[in-house]
């Protein structure tokens, strides 16, 4: 069953746009609360060891300071199974920057000043932060992020490599990367009792959190567990979120710290906002990766072997295994295939989701290797990919729900002027610049997570309310869900009001895995149909009906992925090696596009992040101290407006008949996948220099 077309497919402007640009949209920290207390964390200055003494005396003496909370004073948490969230529960320090205390004061200034006066003595232990492929202690995780097996092995890669007419066997690396949403991670926590805001009886502790999160419900369920409360007595409110990119996809230590801090001043709201610098150790990051990619092919470019073996890090405190090689399992046809993930558990902050975990770094290695193979075979890179298009998913053997990679590549080549690409690298020049074009393929899986429910209500005056505890982190979800509901109810857009961003609303899965529109949207479609089924087109005032996200039988029968082709033009100053990217084009196949305006922003936003990953972003960890030394925007460079010239995204007009009632596969992450490889490949085409380690900087291009 598909929904009627009308609002869906139209470039509706953001429903919350006016509130955001006029500043009336209250983000978590802006939320007016009575009589707030301000929290400033104290962070560990060693990478590993124990706190042996803390002197909060000078801090407590600062005017306006209400409390200094350390592991000695902090309340005991009910559940410390998640070590990242076991905040202030012991004297152990597992990474530099970890919370060792928090100061509470009447003003942010007093809190910060006092936090600087807390004296902490440590018993320092030797730490280990350096990732190398040849280091001792690498291990195989039980599974990698997404629940995938860490290793796969089919056929005989070594024999196939031995026999192949053409081979590529190279190491590619990506650095430690950091999510930097514009809005930092903020939490405003207030403890009350049931008397305050309903739910629970008087005297029953109740926690309300105004939070900047990608999932109010997951924050609620997690914090309820950590603080030992029934979920009904935790409420998380998060209507507006200034970006997340995965870093707000799960609760992090600051959420718990805000809750613990607020226990010290019962009844008063505690405001906590991480600074940009603090985010570098506390908001998750992308692991550095060391990727060995091996490709074996016949002289005609047909792959006989694909191997993608990755070494990366996790935190000794808590495991997060980025699924870097998973994309290589389904991308190209080859009878012999191997993937592997090995981890080093280091004394580093806890890594986590960052836009397209797995595919984003993995497709740098894989797609640069494909470019190297094209070069070795004397084939056009578009043609090489077309020759290796698998009929069915090589991993599962299932048919594709819709794989249009070759169409994306050909369409992009035509639009981008691919025929102008010099066949011989380093031979096209414009003035003092070397000009190159590059291409890379991208993909991202279709995810639809169970667990969302939507409820539709009618107020009697022609207006419908659709309630679902989903999140709009700048993606356009607010608008897109309104469009979906309007079409499913067969009413005008203006007749629907969507409510999201509150755990009091029906449950919804996290805004992650590019799954929001498909998951929440199909719950909304089901709820709207249930509503019309129960009440018809003339519902009585107060009518209400809800539905859970329906199961998706096709998900077990088909291999479902979005695909894309990324093109980049680069210009490299022949004498200084300075790199400019005047043009990027992405052509995507992502099923139905619900809102071209907000979708375009997702695609070009992802591509811009990919450009930034290609040329700028690199966390520099000082292994002597365990400290990310460039932990601010002065030194951790992100592309500026002046670096982003013409980034364009288009998509195939299509509908994935197997992707739920909307036929839409998800668009939030695919834009970053392949973009760095397209740029690296264009740099090679321009200069003849093959850069296999990101970021690509001018000094690497001078020979």
């Amino acid at each position, binding site marked *: 069953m598909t929904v009627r077309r009308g609002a869906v497919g139209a470039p509706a402007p953001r429903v919350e746009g006016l509130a955001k640009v006029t500043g009336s949209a209250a983000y978590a920290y802006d939320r007016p609360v009575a009589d707030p207390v301000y929290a400033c964390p104290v962070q560990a200055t060693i990478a590993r060891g124990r706190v042996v003494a803390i002197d909060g005396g000078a801090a407590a003496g600062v005017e306006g300071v209400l409390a200094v909370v350390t592991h000695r004073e902090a309340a005991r948490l009910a559940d410390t199974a998640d070590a990242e969230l076991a905040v202030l529960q012991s004297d152990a320090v597992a990474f530099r920057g970890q919370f060792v205390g928090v100061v509470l004061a009447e003003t942010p200034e007093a809190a910060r000043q006092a936090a*600087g006066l807390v004296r902490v003595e440590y018993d320092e232990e030797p730490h280990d932060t350096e990732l190398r492929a040849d280091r001792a202690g690498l291990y195989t995780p039980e599974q990698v992020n997404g629940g995938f097996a860490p290793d796969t092995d089919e056929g005989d890669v070594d024999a196939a490599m031995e026999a192949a007419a053409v081979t590529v066997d190279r190491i590619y690396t990506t650095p430690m990367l950091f999510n930097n949403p514009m809005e930092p991670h903020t939490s405003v926590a207030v403890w009350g009792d049931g008397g305050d805001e309903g739910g629970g009886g008087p005297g029953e502790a109740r926690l309300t959190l105004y939070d900047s999160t990608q999932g109010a419900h997951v924050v609620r369920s997690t914090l309820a567990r950590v603080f030992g409360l029934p979920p009904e007595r935790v409420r998380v409110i998060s209507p507006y979120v200034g970006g997340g990119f995965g870093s707000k996809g799960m609760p992090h230590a600051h959420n718990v710290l805000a809750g613990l801090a607020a226990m010290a001043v019962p009844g008063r709201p505690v405001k906590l906002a991480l600074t940009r610098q603090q985010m570098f150790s506390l908001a998750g990051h992308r692991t550095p990766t060391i990727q060995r990619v091996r490709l074996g092919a016949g002289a005609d470019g047909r792959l006989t072997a694909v191997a993608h073996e990755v070494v990366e890090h996790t935190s000794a405190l808590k495991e997060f295994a980025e699924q870097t090689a998973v994309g290589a399992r389904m991308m190209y046809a080859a009878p012999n295939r191997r993937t592997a993930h090995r981890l080093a558990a280091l004394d580093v902050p806890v890594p986590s989701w960052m836009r397209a975990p797995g595919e984003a770094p993995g497709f740098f290695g894989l797609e640069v290797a494909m470019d190297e193979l094209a070069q070795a075979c004397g084939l056009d890179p578009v043609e090489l990919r077309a020759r290796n298009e698998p009929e069915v998913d090589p991993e599962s053997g299932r048919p594709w729900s819709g794989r249009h990679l070759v169409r994306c590549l050909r369409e992009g080549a035509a639009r981008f002027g691919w025929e102008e690409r010099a066949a011989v690298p380093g031979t096209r020049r414009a003035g003092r610049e070397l000009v190159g074009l590059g291409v890379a393929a991208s993909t991202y899986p279709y995810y639809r997570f169970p667990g969302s429910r939507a409820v539709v209500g009618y107020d009697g005056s022609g207006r419908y309310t659709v309630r679902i505890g989903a999140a709009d982190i700048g993606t356009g979800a607010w608008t897109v869900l309104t469009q979906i509901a309007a079409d499913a109810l067969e009413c005008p857009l203006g007749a629907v009001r969507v409510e999201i961003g509150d755990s009091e609303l029906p449950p919804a899965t996290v805004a992650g895995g590019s799954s929001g529109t498909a998951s929440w949207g199909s719950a909304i479609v089901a709820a709207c149909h249930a509503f019309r089924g129960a009440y018809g087109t003339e519902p009585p005032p107060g009518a209400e009906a809800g539905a859970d996200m329906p199961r998706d039988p096709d998900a077990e029968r088909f291999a479902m992925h979005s695909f894309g082709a990324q093109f980049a033009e680069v210009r490299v100053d022949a*004498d*200084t*090696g*300075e790199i*400019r990217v005047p043009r990027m084009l992405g052509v995507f196949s992502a099923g139905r596009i619900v809102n071209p305006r907000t979708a375009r922003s997702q695609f070009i936003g992802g591509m811009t992040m990919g450009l930034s990953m290609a*040329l*700028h972003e*690199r966390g*520099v960890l000082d292994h002597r101290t365990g400290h990310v*030394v*460039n932990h*601010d925007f*002065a*030194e951790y*460079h992100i*592309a*500026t*407006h*002046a*670096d982003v010239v013409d980034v364009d995204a288009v998509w195939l007009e299509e509908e994935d008949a197997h992707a739920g009632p909307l036929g839409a596969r998800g668009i939030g992450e695919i834009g970053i996948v392949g973009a760095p490889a397209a740029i690296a490949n264009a740099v090679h085409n321009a200069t003849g220099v093959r850069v296999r380690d990101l970021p690509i*900087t*001018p*000094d690497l291009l*001078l020979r």
Partner: protein
Amino acid sequence: MEFLRPATWAEALAAKADLPEAAPIQGGTDMMVELNFDVHRPAALLDLNRVAELTRWTAEADGRLRIGAGVPYARLIAELGDRLPGLAQAARTVGSPQIRNRGTVGGNLGAASPAGDSHPALLAGDAVIEVESAARGVRMIPADEFYLGVKRNTLLPDELIRAFWMSPASGPQYFSKVGTRNAMVIAVCSFAIALHPGERRVGAAIGSAAPTPRRARAAEEFLAAELDWDAPLEPAVLRRFGELATEAASPIDDVRGTAGYRRHAIGVMARRTLTWAWNDLRAGRTERRAG
């Protein structure tokens, strides 16, 4: 922390004499970052923003321009871009529009970062820094003698920077900067050149490639001796100039770039800016002859 707000230059000098450890603040684009990152905690801040003289510039009787330390980059570009093209080019590469609205050459001099963008242009253009103290009055310090070390200058504790003096360009001037992105970027290295055709002399200076910004003296002397001002630029002269400019550098490896890259890029920028300037000079001559 005390916050002093003198209304006049005399008051500012008096305040600085009374409390030499007070840190002046003009645009605040360096100072506020340092305070925010807790790099240091001065005993007092001496806010110069009410001192109107600092935000003025004048053309002096001797033909030079005297530019108040508090004139922001945006105004320097708009109001003096024609007379100080090298400095204006450098100013255009500073930070972002917001930073150029607040940041000043006075602050760049006060901070004395080896990577500060105004320095090479000041050096190549023979700028003189006017500093003053209540006790000893004015000192005029050639830019060349102003920088002492990484983030150190020759100011004494009771002195403030009043202005810098520069002659309007007597010939073509260029500034060139390599950065790892197109805006909001600290120079990996930079280079400035100023042709003084009347004196048959060339000013040249490097930035972000040594502990201080510095003149490329040997390169300047080489051009003064070897350049034939009435002929096209000889490739051998250009090459040697690039080499000597490179030799003026003593760069380090850091997150922004390697020492080797910096040396290379200084050579490129030296050759490039000299070529541009030379082409302008000859084109200008041709135009004049034609006109």
